[in-house]
């Protein structure tokens, strides 16, 4: 079996491609079910960064759908459609963030109970309490390797014949993570203690890992995230920090905007404080999870060294 998994014959590839096409048709069309006889596992990532990691581990034995992937939409206000419900009901592996960020996933799963479906809830995987204030767990550099390992475990349990294949892909994932870890370490050595501001807590875990200090009042970040107006006192605090160049960069959430964040953005631009666009979901196309995080760190490096703004990742 090992030889087959690592050196698949050509006919095998063709067969898989056909099977994937069949599954794709099944997913978009009728209720043909995600667990087709071909062994291709239907999987869902509630956010496209999780879908990306599923694909990196599952490779050709997994057909992955991402629920939230539009970089110009606020995921916090996502509305479920019936097609989403159908994709989730047919999935055998689901990866979701938890912490209320993708609450609709839990509802969809309980709406179509299935004993064969495995759900990886990242909050539970990391044993975080419901009171954890910042739900953007994928920005924590330690999160995805743990998620990847859990995905590998579940896929191997579902398709034991391909266990070695999944294990090899996990090993490759881990080794591709090494440059990112090195990049974080190098950044930390150079910029630890630098002060930045944010409009929302989206990248806060990464900023902490990078040794940066986020001077933004937490209330303001949480209010913007939750879609309520921040207090004028907190807005004034942040405005003063930007105007007085107390912060070296403004991490601007391009996906959750309001007149307050837009005003902060133009204030930063006029004050000459560089802007770094951060995203809730992975910008597509052109990025995988690792290169996305690497691009964010690169954008921060540019901001702190040359005061260069990165208004979007493309």
């Amino acid at each position, binding site marked *: 079996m090992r030889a087959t998994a690592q050196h698949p014959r050509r006919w095998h590839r063709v067969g898989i491609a056909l099977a994937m096409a069949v599954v794709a048709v099944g997913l978009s069309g009728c209720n043909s079910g995600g667990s087709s006889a071909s062994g291709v596992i239907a999987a869902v990532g509630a956010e496209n960064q999780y879908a990306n990691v599923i694909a990196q581990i599952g490779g050709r034995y997994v057909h992955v759908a991402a629920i939230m992937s539009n970089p110009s939409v*606020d995921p916090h206000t996502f509305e479920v459609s019936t097609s989403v419900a159908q994709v989730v009901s047919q999935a055998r592996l689901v990866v979701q963030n938890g912490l209320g960020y993708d609450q609709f996933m839990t509802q969809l799963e309980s709406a179509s109970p299935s004993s064969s479906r495995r759900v990886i809830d990242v909050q539970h995987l990391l044993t975080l309490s419901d009171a954890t204030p910042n739900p953007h767990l994928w920005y924590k550099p330690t999160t995805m390797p743990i998620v990847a390992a859990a995905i590998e475990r579940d896929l191997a349990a579902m398709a034991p014949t391909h266990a070695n294949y999944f294990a090899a892909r996990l090993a490759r994932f881990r080794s591709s993570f090494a440059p990112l870890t090195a990049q974080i370490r190098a950044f930390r050595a150079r910029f630890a203690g630098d002060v930045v501001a944010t409009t929302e807590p989206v990248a806060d875990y990464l900023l902490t890992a990078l040794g940066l200090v986020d001077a933004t009042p937490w209330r303001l970040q949480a209010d913007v995230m939750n*879609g*309520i107006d921040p*207090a004028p*006192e907190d*807005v*004034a605090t942040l405005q003063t920090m930007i105007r007085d160049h107390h912060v070296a960069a403004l991490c601007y959430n391009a996906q959750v905007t309001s007149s307050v964040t837009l005003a902060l953005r133009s204030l930063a631009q006029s004050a000459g404080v560089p802007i770094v666009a951060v995203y809730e979901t992975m910008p597509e196309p052109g990025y995988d999870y690792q290169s996305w995080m690497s691009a964010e760190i690169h954008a921060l490096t540019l901001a702190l060294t040359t005061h260069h703004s990165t208004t979007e990742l493309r």
Partner: protein
Amino acid sequence: MGWLFEPGWWANGTVRTALLVGFVVAVTSAVVGIFTVMRGQSFAGHALTDVATAGGAGAFLAGVAPLVGFVGGGVLGAGAMDAIGVQRVKGRDIATGVVLGAAMGLAALFLFLSARSSSASGTTQLVLFGSIFTVSPSTLPEVSWLSGAVLVTLAAVARPLLLSSLSVELAAARGVRLRSVGLIFMVVLAVAVGMSAIVIGAILSTALLIGPPASALRVARRVGRAVALAAGLGVLATWVGVLFAYDSYYWFPSHRSLPVSFFVVAAIVVEYLVASVLRRRTRPAPVAASEPEGWT
């Protein structure tokens, strides 16, 4: 006064914009509101808030300023209500109700679509309940121009408007073009509602439109005084709302502040209660509590 005005109040740009925009909006709403109460068109005013809701939600979808949507939606709704037949007293509530329902349906659609297609956060909260602390300073000139247009128009049609409010037959006999006057007033009303929506949201804008005039008409005996008193009460409620919302930041250890709209509406209710008490003192036996008497 330190206990009343918490730190940073006088230097805060957001607060200054809120106070200035709030002033202009409150005055305009109060003046239009006096005529609305006297003409018995409060329900039409409320229906226009729902149309303004749809307009505000549509503005987010189209990517234009909320004020444009609030006012534009309101004016379209006023036109629709006029076309359906809001002029005739008989069937007026039905026409108003039909437009109201359709508008809220559209608002639901627009809010759904904008949640699905845009990065805008807190749209529903802003459209329904207002967001004066997020209003940009550039809104002030826009609001002032609108206010000027509303007040000039009202001044121009004030006489025939008052006459037709008093007695439709008398106004017709005096040669007042009832339909034109009614339509002009509906448009003015729509603009005023749209402006109030900026301060306390589309759904609550009736409170600013009807509340201060209703209080003023309980105590003032002349139209001129009622207008002045209503404007003063409206501005007071708006400023008290802004002040308390600002101060509420310091009320809790968590520094979680409370919304402006709540305080504005609370102040309006208190004003109305005070006005009712005053009226009972001055006039022991009110003839008909619901009928304004100020314009005789």
